[in-house]
């Protein structure tokens, strides 16, 4: 069911522009959270001002795992959201 169905072409374009802006903002948020998260989880040794090998490795793994998690949950979300929408449609 398309929620943009009531909109004209021009309105849809406007909506698309706004959504793109929103997506950029969301990506910046994602990035920020990733830094905060991985830094907090991995870096705790301040005897040096350079990241140690261990910390570097941890950060790499943290980023990889976080992105994989994000992807997987996005897939699940889309499925579940679709199912929930269908259920609501059927109830009406």
């Amino acid at each position, binding site marked *: *069911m398309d*929620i*943009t169905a*009531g*909109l*004209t072409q*021009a*309105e849809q374009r*406007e*909506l698309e522009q*706004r*959504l793109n802006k*929103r997506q950029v903002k*969301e990506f910046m*948020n994602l990035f920020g959270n990733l830094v905060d998260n*991985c830094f907090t*989880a*991995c870096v705790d040794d301040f005897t040096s001002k350079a990241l140690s090998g261990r910390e570097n490795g*941890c950060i*790499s*793994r*943290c980023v*990889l*795992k*976080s992105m*994989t*998690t*994000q992807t*997987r*949950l*996005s897939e*699940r*979300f889309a499925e*579940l*959201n679709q*199912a*929930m929408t269908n259920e*609501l449609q059927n109830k009406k």
Partner: protein
Amino acid sequence: MSLFGFGARQPTSAEKIASVENELKVIAEMHTRMVKICSLKCIDKTYREGELSKGEAVCLDRCSAKFFEAHSKISDQLQQQTAAQGGGGFGGM
């Protein structure tokens, strides 16, 4: 879908766009919250590996399913309770 009752007059262009945008925003926020909470509940914070373990993957799947179920349940219950109190309620989230 819902235009939140604009009344007798036609909604303006801006109102229509804002309404759809809002709906998508609500969904996007739910997505963000779900990712945050399920990561917290399922992901090992020591990051010993870059790959998701089988256990973590299964945990994420189940967590997201339960999250949606909890969302629906709470939505229903909240509606019932506010209706019982004689209020209007949100009319379907």
